[in-house]
């Protein structure tokens, strides 16, 4: 394979902006410690039982800053089973599953969710529970001598999940958890 001098067509240019933005998420900076050993792959059920998912490749894309391959509709990130085997196996404490969740936080910033995920998030944000209450639930509970479930104090929950007012203007300091607020 020959190339003209200066032809860098096949070279990956690391997108540091993407990595800095990821690093602003809680534990989003951990991928930087990945040395691509692949310990996360062997025990990954999504790798074993699926056809595309490979946590080492996802960490590599993060290292290169290839956000445009990960932050898309129907992203491969949603194939993660959240089993935490990779967290358990990683010799570098990269916590690949946490990096993947931080990437999902970036997807959320773009407003991209699979339908069922968005539905559950909305449920928690409006009712404080993943599973809706209704009169049938109280009747079921009464069968087992259990009292009706009290409503969640949603005023408090709403105040808590409101982003900090200056969140958007904070300086992008990688790995510094103070950077966001």
């Amino acid at each position, binding site marked *: 394979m020959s190339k003209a001098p200066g032809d860098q067509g096949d070279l990956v240019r690391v997108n540091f902006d993407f990595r800095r933005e990821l690093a602003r998420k809680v534990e989003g900076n951990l991928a930087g410690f990945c040395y691509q050993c692949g310990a996360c792959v062997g025990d990954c059920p999504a790798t*074993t*039982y699926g056809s595309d998912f490979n946590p080492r490749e996802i960490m590599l894309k993060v290292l290169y800053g290839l956000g445009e391959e990960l932050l898309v509709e129907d992203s491969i990130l949603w194939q993660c089973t959240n089993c935490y085997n990779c967290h358990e196996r990683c010799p570098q404490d990269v916590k690949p599953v946490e990096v993947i969740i931080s990437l999902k936080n970036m997807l959320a910033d773009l407003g991209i969710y699979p339908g069922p995920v968005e539905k559950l998030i909305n449920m928690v944000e409006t009712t404080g529970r993943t599973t809706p209450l209704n009169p049938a639930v109280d009747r079921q509970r009464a069968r087992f001598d259990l009292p009706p479930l009290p409503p969640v104090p949603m005023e408090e929950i709403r105040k808590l999940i409101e982003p900090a007012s200056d969140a958007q203007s904070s300086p992008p300091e990688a790995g510094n958890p103070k950077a966001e607020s």
Partner: protein
Amino acid sequence: MKRFAFFPGCLIPVRYPAMEYAIRYTLPRLGIEIVDLEGASCCPDPIYFKSKDKLSWLAVAARNLTLAEDLGLDVFTNCSGCTATLSETYHLLQDEALRAKVNERLKRIGREYRGTSRVRHIATVVRDEAGYDAVRDSVVRPLEGLKVAIHYGCHLLKPSRIMQVDDPNNPTVMEHLVTALGATPVRHRNWYLCCGKACQTDEIPSNMMRDLLSTVSDVQADILGMICPTCFGQFDFGQMKVSQQFGEDFHTPPIYYFQLLAFAQGMPYQKLGVERHRFKPECLRRFETAASPAQTE
């Protein structure tokens, strides 16, 4: 009586109240007093809500923990997902900078997270506060000969440094708890697998569940011993779905451990609330008429 704040989460009190009933039946018999947490919300869930914004997730979780701090009690959960959220929050908020950030949010509602309440999973509360012998002594209906395939699931054990429950590569807590009922735990080749619930595709959970259930069939387990309500759903409705999808006849009834314990402690089969299960644990009925030499009530 040892007192613990009870964090019930969403799934068990809303969808599976029979599991909550079993918990409230069994724990006092083991010397553990349940103190209800007023004003608790979703933990929030470690899959979906956490995917949106980890900081909001931590803030809502920390609020739940402050409710237990107000009571001066450690908190226990009955769901592995809730345990994951609350344990991880407890762990992450040992970082001062992150704790300050979360407390900035909590200040909006006049609360402060201090990190004074430890998080426990119900299985470890029974193991560490009551002990296996107390479980054995509470049994009036030993489940002799019942082969239980235990499904640990993921979040009870992992990440092990945060959960601090058991060795994730060779856990024993559920085997001991099942043995204390007089039953026989059977470990199959795929015992460590995930239930697949969090995965947003069909292919992976279906293939995985098929493989897992095949090995459960191979060891001829009578029942699946569950410790997480999310996993339970995957083995109940999910087992039916996978059977249809692959033309298999999987039919091992799943049951939450504390319902099994309640039954062994003498709760009538009719009170177990298994009518809505796709696979009824009819195999338990043979113990209903068994003599109960340890009967004390």
